């Protein structure tokens, strides 16, 4: 399976653009749709919000032909046109349904040795319902985690909000939500959290110390991006995986994975 970066992509606009100008936001998203449609391939994104934003634009254009015509008139100045023939999917969806957990499991070089991972879906991976996973109690990420040899820790808040973009403007509200998530994962025995959403990753990772100082807690949960976890299992080196960019140090997790392996190998 080959992933080809979309040439010349620009920001999809996410929530903020649509909140300031509903219509203009569609054309901003539509530019990427037109670019992708030209390649004839499915559009895959590792960002939950992009997935939702682009799909929303796709559907709104489908439902309102008049709007589609206006958008295309604007896209024409850059020699682009969108015809409505594009599938927009999330990376997790592709990994699960196209690559499949069986294939992933077969390529695992460093099984994660039962590492207790709390799969954190966030909101926009499963809501609104564009894919096939359950909106309240999804399982897709759990299956992915298990295919790597880790143990997916069940905990009730796995698909609840981390505060999203409001971490910047309404920090207090968002920190409260992040705290609940960390608490839920920790008290159910998680050694780390894995997430497919970049913003969730930043919120849970970079702001963990702020949560600790505000609520007088002492969470120390490494937050891994999904590609980092998969990469570890596949035996990719740490620098390539960007493990040195995680704010909460993942060293304990790494120690655990290699320690157990060493023990197993030495027969103790």
């Amino acid at each position, binding site marked *: 399976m080959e992933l080809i970066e979309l040439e010349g992509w620009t920001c999809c606009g996410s929530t903020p653009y649509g909140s300031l100008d509903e219509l203009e936001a569609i054309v901003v998203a539509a530019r990427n749709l037109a670019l992708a449609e030209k390649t004839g391939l499915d559009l895959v994104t590792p960002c939950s919000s992009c997935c939702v934003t682009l799909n929303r634009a796709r559907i709104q254009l489908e439902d309102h032909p008049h709007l589609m015509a206006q958008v295309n008139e604007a896209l024409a100045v850059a020699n682009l046109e969108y015809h409505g023939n594009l599938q927009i999917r999330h990376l997790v969806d592709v990994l699960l349904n196209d690559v499949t957990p069986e294939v992933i499991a077969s390529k695992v070089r460093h099984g994660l040795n039962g590492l207790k991972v709390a799969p954190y879906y966030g909101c926009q991976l499963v809501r609104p319902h564009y894919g096939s996973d*359950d909106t*309240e109690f999804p399982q897709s990420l759990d299956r992915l985690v298990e295919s790597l040899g880790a143990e997916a820790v069940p905990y*009730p808040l796995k698909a609840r909000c981390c505060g999203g973009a409001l971490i910047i403007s309404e920090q207090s509200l968002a920190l409260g939500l992040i705290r609940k998530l960390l608490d*839920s994962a920790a008290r159910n025995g998680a050694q780390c959290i894995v997430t497919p959403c970049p913003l969730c990753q930043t919120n849970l990772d970079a702001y963990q110390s702020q949560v600790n100082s505000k609520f007088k807690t002492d969470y120390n949960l490494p937050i891994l991006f999904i590609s980092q976890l998969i990469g570890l299992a596949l035996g990719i080196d740490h620098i390539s995986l960007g493990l040195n960019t995680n704010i909460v140090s993942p060293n304990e997790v790494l120690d655990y994975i290699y320690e157990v392996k060493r023990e197993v190998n030495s027969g103790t």
Partner: protein
Amino acid sequence: MEPRIGVYICHCGSNIAGTVDTEEVVRFAQGLDSVVVARDYKFMCSEPGQNLIKADITELGLNRVVVASCSPTMHEPTFRRACQEAGLNPYLFEMANIREHCSWVTEDRAEATEKAKALVSAAVKRVYYHQPLETREVPVNPNTLVVGGGIAGIQAALKIADSEHKVYLVERDPSIGGHMAQLDKTFPTLDCSACILTPKMTQVGSHPYIELLTYSEVEEISGYIGNFKVKVRKKARYVDEARCTGCGLCQTKCPWKVDSEFEAGIGKRKAIYTPFPQAVPNIPVIDTEHCVYFLKGTCRLCEKLCEAEAIDFEQQDKVIEVEVGSIILATGFSLFDPTPIYQYGYKRLDNVITSLEFERMVNSSGPTGGNIVLKDGSEPESIAIIHCVGSRDEKYHEYCSRVCCMHSMKFAHLIKEHTDAEVCEFYIDIRSFGKGYEEFYNRVLNEGTIFFRGRPAEITNIAETPEEEGKLVVQFEDTLVGLQRRLPVDMVILSCALEPQPDADAIARLFNISRSADGFFLEKHPKLDPVATMTDGIFVVGCCQGPKDIPDTVAQASAAAAEVLAMISKGRVEIEAATAVIDERICSGCQVCKLVCPYSAIDFDEEKGVCRVNEALCKGCGACIAACFSDAVSLNHFTNEQIVAEMEGMLV
């Protein structure tokens, strides 16, 4: 005989005459071929109007009649009868719809008049080719089949049997009684459900005109109104009904316990069991999926203990064939399973239960002896009752289940009667529409039950404050106050939707009836014919037609009984004459017509190798005529000649 046509243009007050120039249409009609007389009148369907037709038939020797008025669904029977009373075959009559199709769809006088003329011309040209047809009459078998032994089936069976006509009552469970037997008290009078039901059950069990076939299912039906042949499979009970005394020793001693369906899964029964003590018939049944004899060949304790020697492990299913004139379906409902609503925690969290589970819990003959208890055996101090679970929701069932508001209030009342617990109800709207219902709501309010208007978002056991530790928390918006709130409670009761039985689809196909979009059986007309179906002779009553309370169920059952008794009393049914006819000389026996017939009205004669139309089942839809490659089928009263003439007449 040369056709002599009379044409009558109706004014229908101002409904037609207000838009159509009726005088001009009369003048136009007078000029058409074979028209002997053309008149107009204010209300053709009235007695003087009909008398105009009758007088002209007698005095002018008319042998064809056209009335230009409303839709045939309104008055075709009226005018056909008028013709018949004057001695003219009713099928020599044709209607032109110049109201619904003409004066009611435009305000333009000129346009309306031109269209009325075209419609009259078409009718006149068509009626020229009409032939006299005879309606057949078939006798009605006075026996009736009632499928389903809940209160609906019981009521219908009793009403018919009391007229000294035979009823076969088929019930798939080991006993009759249905869901009503599971209830504790009924709203709004708080009658004990079993106390009002069991006398009727006993009556059924001992009625000389009711043949009760329990633990049985209908397997096959064929035939048509007045003449159905039905195969019923009596499943083997493995207990000899003639010998069993109903002493109950086998049940008491059987060592194998199973989740009881009657106890809604919160209590147990044995592998040999009657579903509840007042079962009718009071003859146990062996559940072969859990009986150790059938699983491993051992035990046989019941056989050893039975003094009447009634246990018979060799018993076989028996298929019985009965002949009946009408069928009443009373197959009831199933309760929505709230497991898919993840955020309500059913089966995931302790002490979240459904309405039926609560009914069994609060019932003094239930598994907890009428004590309302939590899983750990203690008594709850606070209980939340949630309305509309699975109802009024586009994700599950869009409809409202009608009875849940009332039974939820009933629960609140019973909880206050049995315990000291506080009760609160979460609703969106209160539906207390029936007799005594609003008064009951008032009573429950005054007893101190708190009503919160807000559909709960979730039920969780994750505590956010010390008061919430160890409790179930209902998170909701109190919409009347406008605040999001979290309420800690000990127990949550989900008032679940009533939905069609899981095999409603199979039953509908078996009996050749339709279902509405919500999955319940479809009545013939929602207002004017609520218990009949489009399949003549088959009726639907009770919750299988749609959720309803006991008063409405009983009323529907009596209504269906009345319709059946009317048929039995008349003793015969008229079969519509506008049916398809197969010319056996042309028919090649390809059976395409049989394939396309939506009413299963065509049979294949193996011997002669041709198809034949069953006139009693045929509804004259015309599908077979269109399908036949050889033009071997024609439709009485809709022949090619008549239709082409009508089209020519339209293009005036």
